[in-house]
């Protein structure tokens, strides 16, 4: 391509047999066209003058074109059969604007890299790759330009643009071995340069040295160590962000919503770390393309599959085993990734169960991803996840009753990337997601069968189109549209009875009405670079939601700004308004599968929030340290909660169980220091925050603290490579206890009954929570890959953290008793990679 370009372009230096003198401009254009057989393509008004003066004999075509057209404003491009006379895009200083675009990928695997920095060193000009590794950067050409690409964990790469012409470049970055090379990226330039604030990214490789829980490292537990993120309960994966509710966190797996991200009653997440490439959490300053949840967006990207060679990995822990395989189907064109995981506690204790009976619990996951490159411009991704939790009991001949509980997610996404040109990138996504929960009980006595099932279900089908367009160095646009069809079945009971002596019954009872809703949104945003220091992201997210013949509409402005104090320091601010049309009915601190996702209805309006945040990001110590400090204030509206004295009741319509119209307020100050030196990496975070709620029908209408209103939250995460073979990691967490409503006294009421008087809602503070976890990992290289042994201890100093406080009773008194769930748990994991 460059050779061809050169040969075409070289026509311009061809000399024409023309004597010096004054000529009519049309004569010159005809002479050029006749001499080289190419047509000149231009607008007549582009000509400088009708008469032009040629100073020398045998001038080149290029010199004649420069006499005909103002070379400061036009440039000439040779195309098959013609020469294009194109107007130069110039900036205010008169420099031509060029566009540099392309993709960034992993040199070894060919996988596209998300969030890589593309920038012009020494300037504030730069961008980051999108979710498909694409970048496009418009910059003024001031001479030879060096364009660099870097990403934490990879060796930086750069190339030179020497001509004032747009260029395409594929960056293939090599994974860095921090032990062997000095050239490592230690900080994300985009942390300082971008307008985006309140966003943290974790690479799956960062997680492998974190302490595990029952031998399993969990992605969501890792993000619970980030500032502003708090676990709702001991060992659980439900989390709250900046004082919001757990249902206000959008979890996306390859762009598809995951409704219940928990396994094992909330103690493990559905994300198999071996299948995950990257996770990114956004807590505030949401750009316009995000919507549908109020408090956070967690994007989990699955590995694409190695396009060049086959690789596999696996592990065995005390709870689960997993295995992954990836490789090319057609080298450099099509690849696959398959990863699966299963717990085996049910298999291990089966020998202890009496013959004829069976009982157990297990969970299993399957992740599959395929990707295919049709051309440089078109690529297709197909990703699929299926997870299942199942608890079962079969009584055998002695006890004819069988029962079970099962729940699971199924998600799939088909994504088609298309590069229209070097400035315009499009992505079409078709998604399908389903979450099922089911309780079943059946009995067979003689020839009579009785079967009762309760189930709830959500099915979403969606279509989305996103566009990235680089208009100029100052403006980069994003836009898109999305439609999702939701099918909510919040509570259905099916009864099946077959009696040998009576009429059979087979009926289905919808306890809560099923809802079919239409969720539509449009968005547009502009990344506007005002000058070298000041940059904005301005956008709007417009959504509408049709349910029960009622249409909700929302206009959600989004604004974020960055002011660059120096190369290493920026100040940021943002304002967002968000609206959410679905709710999670939960009253537990752990993610029980009975937690019910429900839609806004004619009676239950959507929830909304507005958030303002200010922050500062600073690099220190040769960019090995990053310090981020942010303050935020969030207002919540349209909240729902279970009415007092109610909880999950499958036999009742959920709409009668809730109170609506709640409001909330959360504010706090987050501090985050992250470092990434040659051998050590980790972070420290401290957050001071407050979160409150108000419902007319709860707590006698008075404002009350949110259950997870923890005033202080301090965390350390650290990992150190003592040798290339041995790594030691630890995490320590301290936070103020959660809030609870407790009984404080008894008295006789108007009807003569003894009544319990409770404290104001959430007025009691649990004892503080703190815990130290440690991990050690030995890795050994082998001829076929590497293998490692990891040993972890959860809760090293055996802190009895409160999970629940309840009252135990004796004849004359009641005693408050603290129940702690997990104390000093050692675990072991063996893993291998080839």
């Amino acid at each position: 391509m460059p050779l061809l370009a050169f040969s075409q372009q070289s026509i311009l230096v061809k000399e024409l047999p023309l004597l010096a003198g004054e000529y009519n401009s049309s004569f010159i254009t005809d002479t050029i066209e006749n001499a080289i057989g190419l047509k000149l393509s231009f607008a007549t008004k582009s000509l400088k003058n009708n008469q032009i003066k040629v100073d020398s004999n045998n001038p080149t075509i290029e010199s004649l074109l420069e006499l005909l057209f103002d070379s400061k404003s036009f440039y000439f491009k040779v195309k098959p059969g013609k020469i294009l006379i194109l107007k130069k895009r110039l900036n205010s200083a008169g420099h031509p604007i060029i566009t540099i675009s392309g993709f960034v990928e992993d040199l070894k695997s060919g996988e596209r890299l998300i969030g890589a920095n593309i920038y012009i060193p020494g300037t504030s000009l730069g961008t980051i790759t999108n979710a498909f590794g694409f970048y496009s950067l418009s910059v003024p050409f001031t001479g030879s330009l060096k364009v660099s690409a870097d990403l934490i964990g990879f060796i930086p790469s750069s190339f030179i643009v020497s001509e004032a012409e747009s260029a395409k470049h594929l960056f293939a970055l090599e994974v860095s071995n921090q032990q062997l090379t000095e050239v490592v990226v230690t900080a994300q330039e985009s942390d300082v340069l971008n307008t985006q604030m309140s966003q943290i990214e974790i690479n799956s490789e960062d997680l492998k040295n974190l302490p595990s829980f029952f031998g399993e490292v969990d992605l969501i537990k890792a993000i619970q160590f980030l500032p502003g993120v708090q676990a709702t309960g001991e060992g659980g994966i439900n989390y709250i962000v900046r004082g919001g509710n757990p249902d206000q966190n959008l979890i996306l797996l390859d762009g598809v919503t995951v409704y219940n991200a928990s396994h094992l009653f909330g103690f493990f997440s559905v994300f198999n770390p071996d299948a995950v490439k990257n996770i990114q959490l956004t807590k505030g300053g949401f750009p316009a393309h995000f919507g549908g949840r109020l408090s956070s967006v967690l994007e989990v990207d699955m590995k694409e599959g190695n396009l060049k060679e086959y690789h596999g990995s696996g592990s065995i822990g005390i709870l689960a085993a997993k295995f992954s395989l990836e490789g090319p189907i057609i080298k450099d064109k099509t690849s696959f990734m398959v990863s699966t995981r299963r717990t085996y506690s049910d298999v291990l204790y089966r020998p202890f169960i009496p013959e004829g009976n069976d009982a157990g619990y297990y969970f299993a996951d399957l992740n599959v991803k395929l990707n295919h490159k049709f051309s440089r411009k078109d690529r297709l991704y197909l990703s699929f996840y299926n997870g299942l939790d199942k608890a079962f009991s079969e009584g055998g001949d002695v006890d004819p009753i069988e029962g079970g509980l099962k729940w699971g997610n199924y998600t799939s996404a088909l994504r088609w990337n298309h590069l229209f040109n070097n400035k315009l990138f499009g992505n079409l996504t078709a998604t399908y997601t389903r979450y099922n929960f089911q309780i079943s009980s059946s009995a067979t006595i003689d020839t009579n069968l009785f079967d009762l099932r309760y189930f709830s279900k959500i099915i979403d089908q969606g279509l989305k189109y996103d566009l990235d367009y680089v208009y100029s160095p100052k403006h980069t646009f994003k836009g898109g549209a999305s439609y999702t069809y939701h099918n909510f079945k919040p509570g259905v009971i099916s009864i099946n009875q077959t009696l040998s002596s009576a009429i059979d019954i087979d009926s289905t009872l919808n306890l809560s009405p099923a809802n079919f809703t239409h969720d539509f949104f449009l968005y547009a945003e502009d990344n506007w670079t005002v000058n070298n220091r000041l940059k904005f992201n301005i956008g709007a997210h417009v959504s509408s939601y049709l349910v029960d013949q009622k249409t909700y509409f929302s206009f959600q402005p989004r604004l974020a700004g960055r002011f660059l104090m120096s190369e290493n320091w920026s100040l940021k601010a943002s304002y967002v308004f968000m609206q959410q049309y679905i709710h999670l009915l939960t009253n537990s601190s752990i993610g029980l599968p009975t937690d019910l996702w429900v839609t806004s209805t004619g009676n239950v309006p959507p929830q909304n929030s507005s958030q303002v945040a200010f922050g500062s990001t600073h690099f220190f110590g040769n960019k090995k340290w990053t310090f981020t400090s942010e303050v935020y204030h969030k207002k919540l509206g349209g909240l729902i909660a279970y009415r007092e004295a109610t909880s999950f009741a499958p036999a009742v319509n959920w709409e009668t169980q809730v109170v609506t119209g709640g409001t909330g307020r959360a504010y706090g100050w987050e501090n985050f220091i992250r470092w990434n030196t040659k051998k050590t990496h980790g972070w420290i975070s401290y957050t001071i925050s407050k979160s409150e709620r108000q419902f007319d029908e709860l707590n006698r209408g008075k404002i009350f603290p949110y259950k997870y209103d923890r005033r202080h939250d301090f965390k350390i995460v650290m990992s150190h490579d003592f040798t290339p073979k041995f790594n030691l990691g630890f995490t320590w967490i301290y936070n103020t206890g959660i809030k609870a409503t407790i009984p404080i006294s008894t008295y006789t009421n108007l009807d003569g009954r003894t009544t319990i008087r409770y404290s104001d809602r959430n007025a009691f503070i649990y004892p503080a929570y703190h815990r130290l976890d440690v991990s050690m990992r030995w890795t050994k290289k082998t001829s076929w890959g590497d293998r490692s042994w990891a040993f972890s201890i959860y809760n090293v100093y055996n802190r009895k953290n409160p999970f629940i406080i309840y009252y135990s009773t004796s004849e004359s008194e009641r005693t408050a008793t603290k129940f702690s769930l997990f104390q000093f748990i050692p675990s072991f994991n063996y893993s291998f990679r080839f």
Partner: protein
Amino acid sequence: MSKKLLTYLLILLLFSCEENILIDYPEAQTNLVLNANLIPGDTLNARLGLSVPYTNRTPPPYIKDGDIEVFEDGVFIGNMSVCKSESRSFQSTDSIYTYCLAAVCDPHKNYKLIASHKDYPSTNGETKSTSLPNISNVTFGIGPVNDFINVPISFIINDDPSVKNYYFFEVLNFDSITGSFFDFDFSLSTLDLTIEMLGESEDILEIPTGESSGKKGFLSDHLFNGQQKKVNITLQFTQGFTNYLKVTSCSESFYQYSRLDILSLIVPGENPFSEPYQTYSNVSNGYGVVGSSKDTVIVLKN
């Protein structure tokens, strides 16, 4: 055997996770408890008791050495003293003391009760007295009544626009063999919400059927705003009993107390994940409720 062993190990493991702790909660002190239901046409009665910290399992006692002052529309009308009450709302026993004032409760007056005791902080509560509910056009079913047949009941409440009146109603049947009353279940403790969802502008309030746990149907004042409204309900009746409709008009404090008190009867066990209900109290510096109610009972005949 091995299954049992596993179970014992599991129990041992879980119990080792328990630890008694001291909850130091300043509000868990002993307070006066003042309860009064002022019934128009009856003498004024109240009860005075003490609260007990939750950690103590002693039953909360009534006290007889307290003092209750009564104010009517801001004017002091006398002190209540312990009496032998035969009142419908407060009957005295050996350990349950009733305080009385020889004055009749008038409708639509403001009553304030101030209770004091030498050992505890004084407390007070205030209410507007209600009046007899104005019920008309009571209808009960059509045709013969068989066992467990759905029978519609309807009645009209004529709300007094000059005062705030809250209502609740009950349907009871009397079993002459056992001599006991049986309450019909209505649609939940959250019935008032259900009705609000039906729309306040409707002239007819249809009480939904199907889900039942509450014994009373609650009707908030703002459903009426002085208008006449028809209430429709369908219940399953059994032949052979005498059925009654009881409609109570009450003050806001009595309404709120009764609504939330229902919850204390339906709380599903000690679910640690369930949010507890908050009892209603309009008594400052103490507990209890000072309210007013007046009911009317109609025999249902078809």
